[in-house]
């Protein structure tokens, strides 16, 4: 950065005095706001501002990552089961797309600094295309989810709030034929109080005579840890064993889930949609910004002495990319 700065200062020096008194408006490098002394100072301020802003962005997603980890930790098998709905291929594809676009963006900044107008425009267009590609793929994925009734909230067949068609293939019928949010509540209730009503001798203390089957302590339903493989097996046999255990772990079926977990399958999708949704919005904003920079680039506004906007938009775009690089493995590649 300091290298750029010095270059800027040099350029500005060429244009006239940097250290004229604050209030002097006669000699004034273009783009220099009246409350800054030198383009260098202005550039660094912008840079600091941007980094601080990116910090807030991270914290904002941080909240979602927390929610994710809490539920992943408390309901691993739900994530095991539900993540099979996500298509690794498209996920990976999008990852590649974004990384590439990040590359072209970085390149664009370089071009701007070198005052290579055409190069800058090309890079920005490519980056923009990357964004477009990403959004197209995402919308394909989303529409699949929508049609499979694993949409967000009430559009999700695993959710108690589900309000779509009920009597089709799969878990839907299994779980929801006899229930909707309402009678479900009744079920819990009955269960609870039936339990409560178990007659017990008055004086004798008891443990928890009335545990509600729908409320369990989370750790109850954890995936069983891989059993120790008996010693003295042939290598082949051992491999087989391990494979078997893995198999079991990865081929979790809806039926295998305890009731308490069944009720939480929808949460995976909700977290998925909140995270990718918020990220998607950021991609859109980023595309907007790039377009704006692109327009200014065509007007030939950037060069060695002034490329702050390109630089900042670049930073933003890298952040969006970075966040996706976390989202992809966390959501698509659960093991």
């Amino acid at each position: 950065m300091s290298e750029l700065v010095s270059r800027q200062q040099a350029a500005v020096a060429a244009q006239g005095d940097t250290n004229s008194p604050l209030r002097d408006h006669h000699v004034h490098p273009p783009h220099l706001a009246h409350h800054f002394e030198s383009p260098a100072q202005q550039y660094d301020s912008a840079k600091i501002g941007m980094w601080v802003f990116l910090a807030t962005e991270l914290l904002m997603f941080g909240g979602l990552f927390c929610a994710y980890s809490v539920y992943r930790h408390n309901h691993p098998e739900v994530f095991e089961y539900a993540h099979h709905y996500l298509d690794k291929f498209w996920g990976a594809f999008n990852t590649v797309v974004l990384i590439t676009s990040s590359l072209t963006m970085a390149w664009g900044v370089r071009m701007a600094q070198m005052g290579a107008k055409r190069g800058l425009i090309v890079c920005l267009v490519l980056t923009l295309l990357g964004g477009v590609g990403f959004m197209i793929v995402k919308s394909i994925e989303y529409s699949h989810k929508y049609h499979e009734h694993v949409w967000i909230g009430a559009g999700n067949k695993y959710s108690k709030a589900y309000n779509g068609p009920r009597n089709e293939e799969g878990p839907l019928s299994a779980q929801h034929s006899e229930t909707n949010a309402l009678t479900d509540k009744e079920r819990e209730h009955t269960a609870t109080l039936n339990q409560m009503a178990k007659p017990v001798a008055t004086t004798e203390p008891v443990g928890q005579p009335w545990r509600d089957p729908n409320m369990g302590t989370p750790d109850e339903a954890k995936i069983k840890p891989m059993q120790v493989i008996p010693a003295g097996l042939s290598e082949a046999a051992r491999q087989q064993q391990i494979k078997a255990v893995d198999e079991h772990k990865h081929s979790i079926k809806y039926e295998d889930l305890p009731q308490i977990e069944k009720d939480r399958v929808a949460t995976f999708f909700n977290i998925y949609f909140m995270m990718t949704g918020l990220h998607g919005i950021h991609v859109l904003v980023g595309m907007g910004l790039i377009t704006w920079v692109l327009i200014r680039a065509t007007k030939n506004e950037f060069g060695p002495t002034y490329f702050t906007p390109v630089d900042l938009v670049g930073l933003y775009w890298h952040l969006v990319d970075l966040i996706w690089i976390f989202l992809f493995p966390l959501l698509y590649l659960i093991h």
Partner: protein
Amino acid sequence: MSAINPPVSLGAPVHEPQAPGDNYLTHSRGILSWLFTLDHKRIGIMYMVGVLTAFFIGGVFAMLLRTELLTPGPTFNSDKTQAWNFYNHVFTLHGAVMVFLFIIPAIPAILGNFILPMQLGAKDVAFPRLNLGSLWCWIGGAIFFGYVLLGGILNASLGWHLPGGYGLDTGWTFYTPYSSQQASDGTIAALLGVFILGFSSILTGVNFIASIHMLRPKGMTWFRMPLFLWALYATSVIQILATPVLAITGLLLLAERLLHIGIFDSKFGGDPVLFQHFFWFYSHPAVYIMILPAMGVISEVISTHSRKHVFGYNFIAYSSIAIALLSFLVWGHHMFVSGQSPISNVIFSLLTFSVAVPSAIKVFNWVSTMYKGDIRFTPAMVAAMCFLVLFTFGGLTGLFLGSIANDIHVTGTYFIVAHFHYVMVGSVLFAFLAGLYHWWPKMFGRMVNVAWGNVGMILLLIGFNVTFFPQFIMGAKGMPRRYATYPVEFTGFHQVSTYGAYLMAIGLFTIAFNLLHALLKGVKAPANPWGSNTLEWHSPSPPPHDNFPVEPVAGDPYDMKAWTWDEPTKQWVLDEERAKTVAGTEPTKHHH
């Protein structure tokens, strides 16, 4: 490159030099020249208009709820269900408006915006457009709250039902599942409002951090900064790190309420306690967003009006940063009975106490600053002295709450209500008023009437204690908070409290009129009525459009001897030489 290009997006446009005698108030005319100004001073003033209005509305709610509590029975409606509902809406809006619309923006957005660039000897904050943006975010958020409010009023009075506008009755803490199921649908609009207000707060934070890093003048090293700037810096750090978490919490809660995403709502497999963690992760640091700037104001006011170099500058500066960092580690102390694990309870309790120490340091340093001073009892100073006592008391009552075994007894009672009013009203509000009185002459070029100012301040002080002290006793005796009615045994306490509240209102109106009177009829103020050496006083009152006719020299901000009282002209005059030499003693530090 052609010079006709628009300037960099982040800066303010270059403007023509101004005529002599012209100041920021008269610089340009017309309502638009205010609404779309990039001048930090005008933005600060507009914030003041908005925020004080919010304060007034919050106060009206306070009076309403105190009046309902005058008797155990229903007051505003013969039908109990109606009356209780009304009360629940009133205390929720009271809390939400006071916190989100009044006290969080109060000091940073009003005094900070106006004073920070001037104390830096700069022409403006780093990003004037962002600054305007933050103002508009505040207005946007206020509009949403206004809608909720209007909806509530129309519904209560005429039974009309604005879509999504029927009041707000979640308590300012928005706990799920009540907020995601039963609560009145104003919740949605209110959450959007909070979301937008969050950005207003974030933008201010970004602006202040960049400004303090980049705009410090020659001679102002980090440890030559006025303590108000240290305080604002610490505050900004919290604002940018905590507020985004509030934003995401709001979004998730909205989704929970509208789509049932089962993250916070137990009915759909979510965890209500998780919501509390999210909420307090913001809202505890938020209480330091309130108090830190207040502490900054107090440092300025006490040293100036005692005409003494502030005592223990470094400890005060460091303790601000310490408070900012520690504030992120204690949120769990709001959840001792929520069912979070006992271990976390213990850890949070321990950390909570650690925050108390830096605050203690500050208090002692402030008192020592008065030692051997030359103290003038201006309303600012009187307010600051009230702060010292009320904050000490309010803060120490925090220790009752930090100690788990004790908190389990008083949590959810009026003890809490009393605690946070001592720190939010007794401390922050008084500090805010001290700041207003301290900088009023700078802002409007008029002096306030000292006598009336002090009368108002004393009325407020008395009223305040009469209102909130009995609430400690009620709380200790087990009077739960957020109760629209109460066991008769508490009637006496509640009545005292209510009369105290009326007295507070009188005090505040006196103060309001005192300030307004100064604004309209006050004596013209000199550039530096208090003989303070921070840079804003080196410029005329009110300051010109771009702050300084001549570039000020940054010396030791608390070197009161740099200004001497000149009897004939009845003014403080700057000892140029001293200022220069003091400034010279420090190596010039600029950005990088």
